[in-house]
């Protein structure tokens, strides 16, 4: 992940559905301090939960022991915006293949997650490759 600064919150969660609530609550708390509106925070909570739900559903093979299945979140604030990184050290995937598939109209079969993340944030970056984990970076700007 990027360099830590004096306005960065780091959160490591077990990759289990019961901890999605904690990810959302942390997003709320940091978002309030970042000066985001309640509506913006609602949007960002869903986007963060989508990224975390993907880690829970897709990132880890059955042979990874539970105590090594983690979701790493990093939330930072600055100049009227909040950035959230959601990272895992799981199986990874090819984001371009996913984009191609969606362009070819296959998105009907699953795949609401990234669509929502894109629509609910001001910027979405997906860094992933098979075998080397995934990092999703989302930016939400305070409406002025």
């Amino acid at each position: 992940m990027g360099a830590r600064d004096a306005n960065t919150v780091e959160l490591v969660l077990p990759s289990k559905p019961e901890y999605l609530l904690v990810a959302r609550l942390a997003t709320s708390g940091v978002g309030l301090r970042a000066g985001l509106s309640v509506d913006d925070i609602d949007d960002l909570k869903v986007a963060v939960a989508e990224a975390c739900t993907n880690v829970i559903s897709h990132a880890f093979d059955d042979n990874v022991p539970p105590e090594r299945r983690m979701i790493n979140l990093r939330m930072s604030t600055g100049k009227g915006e909040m950035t959230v990184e959601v990272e895992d050290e799981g199986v990874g995937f090819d984001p371009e293949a996913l984009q191609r598939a969606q362009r070819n109209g296959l998105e009907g079969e699953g795949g609401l997650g990234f669509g929502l993340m894109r629509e609910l944030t001001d910027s979405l970056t997906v860094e992933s490759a098979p075998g080397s984990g995934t990092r999703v970076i989302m930016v939400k700007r305070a409406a002025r």
Partner: protein
Amino acid sequence: MRITAERTDEDTALCHVTGELDAYTAPDLRDALDEQLDQGVRWIVADLTELTYLDSTGLGILIETAKKCRQAGGDVAVACDRKNLLRIFQISGTHEILNVVKDVGAARERLQELAQERSEGAGGEEAP
């Protein structure tokens, strides 16, 4: 999340879902809806007016349930009036296919309309 389901008719159910619907609570909703389907329900009003959180996992269950209902000749209508949730239905493009309307009354009406249309179209479906 809390779910209560009541049969309002032989093949119709009204399900109230309150609280937060995410991947943690979703299995309970799926079970509750499947139970209704197993008992012959094919028209479902999902009352989400007291739901405070929804994401793609919840949408997935609603879409799946709507498909099953349609296969049985019925459908799903969703009652929802909360801005943040309506936004999720809108941007996911599920607002129409899930028959999202603002309250339970409108959802019942929507299902009655659909039943009417189908019985006219196919000649023989029962109204809910």
